[in-house]
């Protein structure tokens, strides 16, 4: 459905809406630009922007790893007042996170300061045929993408930091409470493409681990249970 069709039955047309938006935006921009900036962007900032512009590489390997890192980097905050949350769930004795369940996605919201070294977690077992094809590592986030010709998965280790939100899924899903090495976990299965997320938080409540992919549930659990802190 295009913009015009969406507005059938309303008392305003696409053209009228465009015109009022144009006028509204002009006023908004004028009010922003009327206040002079009271600082000059730093040299460090300009360098960072230049590095971003120069950092073009590896087209074609954006997939889940890119989305995952970008989502966490942006740490998007959902406006809780405007979205219907169907359930809010806090778990474990040391509550450092909450799970907010929406009709078609789930948010994990973390609290507290990071006190774990996520680099100490290693993946002990990878199914035959799957190879590491991309990865990203920072002090607070490590993401690894494994792929074969037919299937793949992404595993991420996120250090729990105040305000970080992780979104699972963007369509309707089925969820099930499960266990990984004795720790409570959540398994989500997308009802459309059968992709899955297995999500849990380490025993000290400091690191969130998420395996996302199209591999079988059995393989996902074997990988999950092979993860151990060094």
């Amino acid at each position, binding site marked *: 459905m295009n913009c015009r069709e*969406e507005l059938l039955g309303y008392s305003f047309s696409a053209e009228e*809406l465009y015109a009022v*938006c144009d*006028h*509204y935006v002009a*006023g908004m*921009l004028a*009010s922003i630009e009327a206040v002079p900036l009271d600082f000059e962007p730093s040299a460090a900032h300009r360098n960072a922007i230049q590095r971003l512009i120069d950092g073009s590489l590896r087209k074609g390997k954006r997939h889940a790893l890119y989305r995952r890192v970008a989502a966490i980097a942006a740490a998007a905050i959902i406006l*809780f007042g405007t979205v219907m949350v169907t359930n809010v769930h806090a778990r474990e004795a040391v509550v450092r996170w909450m799970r907010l369940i929406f009709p078609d996605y789930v948010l994990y919201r973390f609290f507290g300061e990071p006190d774990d070294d996520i680099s100490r977690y290693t993946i002990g077992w990878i199914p035959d045929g799957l190879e590491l094809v991309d990865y990203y590592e920072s002090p607070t986030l490590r993401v690894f993408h494994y792929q074969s010709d037919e299937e793949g998965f992404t595993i991420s280790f996120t250090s729990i930091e105040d305000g970080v939100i992780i979104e699972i*899924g963007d369509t309707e899903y089925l969820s099930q409470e499960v266990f990984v090495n004795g720790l409570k976990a959540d398994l989500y299965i997308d009802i459309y493409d059968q992709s899955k997320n297995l999500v849990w938080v380490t025993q000290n409540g400091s690191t969130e681990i998420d395996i996302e992919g199209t591999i079988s549930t059995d393989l996902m659990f074997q990988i999950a249970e092979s993860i151990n802190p060094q």
Partner: protein
Amino acid sequence: MLAALLLLLKTDEEKEQFAQFYRQYENLMFQTARQILDSQQDCEDVVQSSCVYLIDHFDKYASYKPRQVAAYLTLWIRNRAKDLRDRKQWKTYGIMEDIADTAEGMDPGEPESPLESALEKLPERYRDALILRYYNGLSIKELAAYMTISESTARKLLQRSRDSLEKILTEEGGGNA
């Protein structure tokens, strides 16, 4: 750190185009962030993290008219700035604050018509959705990505936004404007 993520500026020409674009709109991005954030460092953080998204979507808005580009940038930066501010408030108070839903620091001026008056009265999130869809021409998928929501949520958000606009117009006798 984030440089390793950027993949879409393939050629020197594209990089130069984005660099030029950045220079053109840098001040507007900072002015937008500054209206919401107190520190220069926070403003720079927001602009830098926003550039990750903006580079990735450069092909989408590069062909916009200048005012459409400015709207696209301003709404993005404003929302990221609010995200950062709200995260800091949560950190400070340890509770989920009910952040007032206002167009902070942005006075669009006198409305020219009942429809524009109704647009101004909408909750910010609804107004943003209408501007991005009917002014910037984003598809549902693009709107969902922009607002970091699912496509079904984007559809519902647009539906509510249109309905709310109609309701305000009707209540204020400005229907069939």
